[in-house]
């Protein structure tokens, strides 16, 4: 099964809506609640990163009998140093975004902890692609 959800850069009031749709689908499919929880955390963080750091993006979801594969791709500034971005506490978020409680630099580490596989590729001034894979078994 494949699904695609658009993500708007800068629109914080909609942040989390794509992840919420995926959660509903996984619940309907009776996926193990523990795996739904992990997937929801990682998708939410990926979605918020597009909202907070990029211009626009998509969440492409592919659900198989044994796994969920999600590709979040965006057009945006890209990530110059992925190892640095992965460090707990590293954030380039603006003061306004931080005041709302985003920008703690815990997003990518949260994704790492809550996914079985995580792959990031990024090109500066073009965009970022993040792949998250969680197995149901």
């Amino acid at each position, binding site marked *: 099964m494949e699904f695609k959800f658009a993500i708007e850069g800068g629109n*914080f*009031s909609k942040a989390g809506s794509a992840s919420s749709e995926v959660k509903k689908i996984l619940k309907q499919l009776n996926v193990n609640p523990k795996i739904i*929880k992990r997937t929801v955390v990682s998708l939410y963080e990926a979605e918020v990163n597009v909202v907070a750091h990029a211009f626009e993006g998509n969440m492409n979801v592919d659900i198989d009998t044994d796994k969920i594969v999600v590709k979040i791709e965006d057009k945006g500034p890209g990530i110059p140093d992925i190892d640095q971005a992965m460090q707990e506490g590293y954030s380039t978020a603006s003061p306004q975004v931080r005041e709302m*409680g985003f920008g703690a630099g815990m997003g990518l580490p949260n994704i790492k902890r809550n996914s079985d596989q995580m792959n990031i590729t990024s090109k500066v001034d073009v965009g970022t692609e993040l792949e998250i894979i969680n197995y149901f078994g």
Partner: protein
Amino acid sequence: MIVQDIVEKLGLKVCSGANGLNREIEGGYTSDLLSDVMGNADENHVWVTLQTHKNIMAIASLKELAAIVLVKGYEPEADAAEQSNEEGIPILSSEEEAFELTGKLYEIINQAK
């Protein structure tokens, strides 16, 4: 222990989501950093925070939290209150600061266990 119990015991104001006052509480988490809550709070937890914008409801809904308690008399923004009513996840408000409120919540939730 349900949300209504902490409303009564701590004299909290019910700002929105009154249709969820019978939700079960099993613990809590206190933080104003959204990723921290996303990563560490769990289902049926009460969340103590000073954040009042709509994203707190996105998190409460995704994590299936029992309720949100705002500190220092803060009130939810209109769109947050609206989503709280739709989802039946209450947003409550306390006059106290996070430290005092968390201490009291910790005590009553653990007594009930």
